[in-house]
């Protein structure tokens, strides 16, 4: 889609009356900037700061001590602890860090303290420039309720809503707002503290849960109700205000593709916005900014319904996660603008004259297991690299070797692609994601690829119901086969899942590794036999699937089967090293990159990552031998991920039913119940409330009813035997 040059910000113009508390003009330039954030945004802010000659200070929690953003900073200050409340939300420690390093400005990034008016005020009192709007603007917009009232008064269209407090009549409020409705945290964001209610009967429970979540996440449990527009588009407008009172907009972004209210694909411009609508949206957004005397970068969020009507949602008084799409279509550096405005400069002419050029799409790569219901994933990112190319930008908070822990948001990187058209941008973005090497952590990459290649998305028919209409698990699955069929050279190979070839490549790289690391006979042919009785054999697991690869090398040719099926009539290994396999199957040649990470412990297994033109697969090499002493007892319940045990719902000896929750873990801000696998008796319970557990740690053992009886009998017998021994010794 080609977007014509925008006619420029509709309302860039003379300063409105400066409200009290706005940053005074003409203050001193920033020399040293502390970034009160982590991950990709901290790194992104630092890069701009360094380009402008500004020194940087990072603050880091204990789990982040080896994070790339810390290494990028000129100086860094430790925030002891790991939870956000102990670290990145500690305004006092961050101000102390600024004082200790002599930082004269603080950039809050997004999330954490970025929309905390109290922190902005503390900064001002400490004589430190807060890179963002004044505390009053933050406070005014921080309460979504107040913001809405203010906007309604300023003539910005808003959705019907109601505030909930102790005296509220929930039933009446709900009826007035109308169903379906949303319960939202007044001081919230990122989907937390939010509940969709379709049935009036569910309202009370939803309000209570949202309030609890909001209290835990934001320290304020106030919630409100708001009419829910079914499957609207989420369209937001980037605004900028300077200390001279200029407020302008930098066009819209569409962020409709969301899962659990979390944006995952964002773009600019919106395929649903034409010039007239763009002007109307811009006008409303600038009006919203002016009403609060906005200074700095902000975003006015709207919902856009199918008829083209839009309603004010909220103002985010900070840089948005998705700001790079605006940067790519305008050629501007929004962080640079933030810093210049914070230094008191007026908005420069290139911003006032900004135009949209081409199209940009951002995909958020999350560490999560999509088919398992977006379960957060953790682990070590053994490799994390993306192909470089024109029009592709990667803002990453991690690098190869980084550990993705349970403490923070699981976004690994934002991958942004720019193109002349929306189609080109989507294609570039898909290629960058497809050819990225992401090893060691389960991600939503397949889902992102599935979306980027899905016809409805490509046609621009995006709204917040997109992932309800399209099953995320199915979209994830489609990503792999799409690449396979796209090649389509030989019917037989196209029909064969790429994972089969990946298992073959893993095996061939594995044998090359075995030969290279051999202490003796290294130069002899791999797997040579003078009396060949069986081929070489190695097995991999991919989820519940097993791939048994058998092979016998005969010079460059190889007889190779996966699960008993030859992968081709003629298979030639053009080259095989431990990290690259150049494989030709019936004349179709592909080069695979293979990385093997040995499993911890002595079991001999390994994780093998295969990346090729036909997709990426993470396989687990199964050890040839299982050490019986390490085998888990059947009925063992292992922690599915690292987390904190927040509730223990069973005790040893308790009779339980299959599916009954026994232990509740909290990880990545979400609760996960660990349930009994079968009817039986809890024979062991090792978890205690408040305990931090690692993935795979034994939490409990449930013996199936008959097993439990056997075990009791065994124990009795053992006791009797011990007694007999004792007697004999006496």
């Amino acid at each position: 889609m080609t977007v014509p040059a925008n006619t420029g910000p509709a309302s860039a113009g003379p300063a409105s009356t400066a409200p009290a508390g706005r940053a005074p003009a003409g203050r001193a330039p920033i020399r040293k900037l502390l970034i009160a954030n982590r991950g990709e945004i901290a790194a992104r802010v630092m890069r701009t700061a360094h380009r402008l000659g500004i020194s940087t200070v990072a603050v880091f929690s204990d789990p982040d001590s080896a994070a790339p953003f810390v290494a990028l900073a000129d100086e860094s200050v430790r925030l002891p602890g790991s939870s956000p409340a102990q670290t990145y939300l500690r305004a006092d420690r961050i101000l102390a860090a600024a004082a200790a390093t002599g930082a004269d400005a603080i950039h809050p990034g997004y999330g954490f303290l970025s929309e905390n008016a109290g922190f902005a005020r503390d900064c001002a009192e400490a004589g430190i420039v807060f890179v963002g709007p004044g505390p009053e603007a933050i406070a005014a917009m921080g309460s979504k309720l107040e913001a809405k009232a203010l906007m309604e008064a300023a003539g910005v269209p808003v959705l019907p809503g109601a505030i909930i407090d102790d005296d509220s009549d929930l039933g009446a409020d709900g009826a007035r707002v109308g169903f379906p409705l949303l319960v939202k945290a007044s001081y919230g964001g990122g989907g937390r503290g939010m509940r969709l209610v379709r049935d009036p009967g569910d309202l009370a429970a939803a309000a209570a849960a949202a309030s609890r979540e909001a209290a835990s996440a934001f320290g304020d449990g106030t919630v409100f109700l708001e009419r829910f527009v079914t499957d609207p588009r989420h369209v937001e407008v980037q605004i900028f205000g300077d200390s001279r009172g200029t407020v302008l907009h930098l066009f819209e972004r569409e962020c409709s593709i969301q899962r659990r209210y979390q944006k995952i694909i964002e773009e600019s411009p919106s395929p649903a916005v034409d010039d007239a609508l763009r002007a109307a949206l811009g006008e409303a957004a600038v009006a919203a900014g002016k009403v609060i005397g906005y200074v700095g970068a902000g975003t006015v969020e709207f919902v856009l319904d199918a008829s083209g009507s839009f309603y004010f949602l909220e103002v985010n008084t900070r840089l948005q996660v998705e700001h790079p799409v605006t940067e790519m279509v305008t050629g501007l550096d929004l962080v640079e603008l933030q810093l210049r405005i914070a230094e008191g400069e007026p908005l420069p002419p290139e911003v006032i004259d900004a135009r949209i050029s081409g199209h940009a799409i951002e995909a958020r790569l999350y560490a999560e297991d999509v088919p398992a219901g977006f379960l957060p994933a953790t682990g070590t990112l053994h490799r994390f690299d993306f192909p470089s190319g024109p029009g592709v930008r990667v803002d990453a908070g991690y690098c190869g070797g980084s550990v993705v822990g349970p403490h923070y948001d699981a976004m690994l990187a934002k991958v942004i692609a720019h193109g002349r058209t929306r189609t080109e941008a989507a294609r570039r973005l898909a290629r960058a994601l497809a050819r990225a090497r992401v090893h060691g952590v389960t991600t939503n990459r397949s889902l992102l690829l599935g979306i980027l290649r899905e016809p409805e998305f490509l046609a621009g028919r995006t709204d917040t119901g997109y992932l309800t209409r399209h099953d995320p698990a199915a979209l994830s699955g489609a990503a792999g086969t799409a690449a396979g069929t796209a090649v389509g050279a030989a019917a037989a190979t196209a029909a064969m899942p790429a994972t089969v070839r990946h298992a073959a490549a893993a095996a061939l790289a594995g044998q090359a590794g075995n030969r290279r690391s051999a202490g003796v006979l290294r130069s002899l042919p791999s797997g040579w036999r003078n009396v060949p009785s069986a081929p070489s054999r190695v097995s991999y697991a991919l989820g519940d699937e097993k791939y048994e690869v058998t092979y016998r090398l005969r010079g460059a040719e190889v007889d190779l089967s996966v699960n008993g099926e030859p992968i081709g009539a003629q298979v030639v290994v053009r080259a095989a090293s431990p990290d690259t396999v150049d494989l030709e199957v019936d004349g179709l040649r592909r080069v695979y990159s293979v990385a093997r990470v040995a499993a911890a412990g002595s079991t001999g297994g390994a994780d093998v990552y295969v990346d090729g033109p036909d997709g990426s697969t993470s396989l687990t090499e199964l050890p040839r031998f299982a050490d019986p002493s390490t085998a888990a007892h059947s009925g063992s319940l292992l922690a599915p991920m690292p987390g904190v045990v927040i509730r223990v719902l069973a005790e040893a000896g308790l009779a339980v039913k299959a599916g009954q929750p026994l232990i509740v873990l909290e990880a990545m801000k979400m609760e996960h119940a660990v349930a009994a696998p079968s009817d039986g008796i809890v024979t062991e319970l090792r978890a205690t409330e408040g305990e931090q557990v690692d993935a795979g740690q034994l939490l409990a053992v449930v013996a199936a009813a008959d097993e439990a009886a056997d075990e009791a009998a065994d124990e009795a017998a053992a006791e009797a035997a011990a007694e007999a021994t004792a007697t004999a010794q006496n």
Partner: protein
Amino acid sequence: MPTLTSSLDTTGETYRANRAAQLALLDQLREQLELAIAGGGPRYQQRHAERGKLLARERIELLVDPDSPFLELSTLAAYGTQFTVGASLVTGIGVVSGVESVIIAHDPTVRGGAINPYSLRKSLRATEIARSNRLPVINLVESGGADLPTQADLFVPAGRSFHDLTELSAMGIPTIALVFGNSTAGGAYVPGMCDYSVMVDRRAKVFLGGPPLVKMATGEESDDETLGGAEMHSRVSGLSDYFAVDELDAIRIGRDIMSRINWRKHGPRPSASPAEPRYDPDEILGIVSADVKVPFDPRDVLARTVDSSEFDEYKPLYGTSLVTGWARLHGYPVGILANHRGVLFSDEAKKAAEFILLANQTDTPLIFLQNTTGYMVGASYEQGGIIKDGAKMINAVTNSTVPHLTINMASSFGAGNYGMSGRSYDPRFIFAWPGAKLAVMGAAQLAGVLSIVDRASAAARGRPFDEEVDRMRTTAVEAQIDAESHAFAVTGRVYDDGVIDPRDTRTVLGIALSAAHSNTVAGRRGYGVFRM
């Protein structure tokens, strides 16, 4: 080092005919190897599998390091006898947890893994290889014991099996027994004499006398588990060091043990990344004629065998019926003696003796590529001292202490077999190509000699000589000798370590050389190199 230029015409009719003949021989070899793999046949293999047991070669495949080469030895033992080809035993050199080892595995599908006289020869040869090359021995035990009908040929020499195991141990060479099944009576001394023993739960049966024998001897009622189960030996008798829950577990434990023996090879390491020959080893098949009387240039073989096809020939202009020279093979320096035109004359014998002394002086292993009809006979040669010169060569071969590796490429007749480090001269390894012949002399010559002797005897006694009978007898003798000198018949008697595909010569020699370097590689000292 000079590079060999091979003038082999790979497009010619001779090449094609030679290759076809060799491929036919290799088909025969494959047929025999398949018999060995089949062991007791499909019925017994299936019954074995149904008991949840692995076949001998399956056990080995799991035991050796993934993707490492495995060289089976004495593959056609018992060929041409009443016993199954392979002699109910699998032996070989494999790498286990990074350690080159001799593996000896019973094939329980062949008459319960019973040991017959050929199994015994095969296993004793394997322990001899372990001793001379300093290789740990891993026994994969499951045998019902001696093949009782052949006990007369077996009982006395079989004692050596246990003798060898503990002798190896005394030499600092670890021995391991993984007991998968029966290991009874004399067999019980295999785990008994090994440094480490691992027994599989409810499978291993290790006792001197089973329940019927005990009942007969003492009247005591007992059962297998009480007399010799893995649990009993692990908890009570202490004969088992490790209790394995199943076969896989036993193999895992065996690999763990090997990873802890703190093994260091005593010989020097090969050079890194040796280059492959410049000529394709596949072409070796077109070099050797089906007719042993047609000689060939061993340099054509060497060009397809040694690293980079580089060969520094020693005395190329002297005693030209024998090619001698220096090369590298899979990174190991070697000296090579290869027959060229069959006959060894005095010059060749002296050249060989000098060359062997030189190799001993520099601690360089020797490779003997046999294609010899023996030392030259005739008045002028006898008068020229061919016996003395042949004796020099045999003396040098006998007293050489560097590792010898011998391959019979085509023929190995007469004392040439001795001079070229035949079986009696203790080569560390000795293999044959499938068309090779080995005998005191060629079948026709031998039959002819007998005929002449008979004729002379008849003449001396004044009896008439029956030409018809002589012709029949000559034909019969020729056929008998021809059969006995056939490579399969020779290897069937365990007179060598196996018949190999000529294209695998480089690989087999590479494995053998590396095995030999587990021991110290040192030549004989004490005299200077005699200029013969």
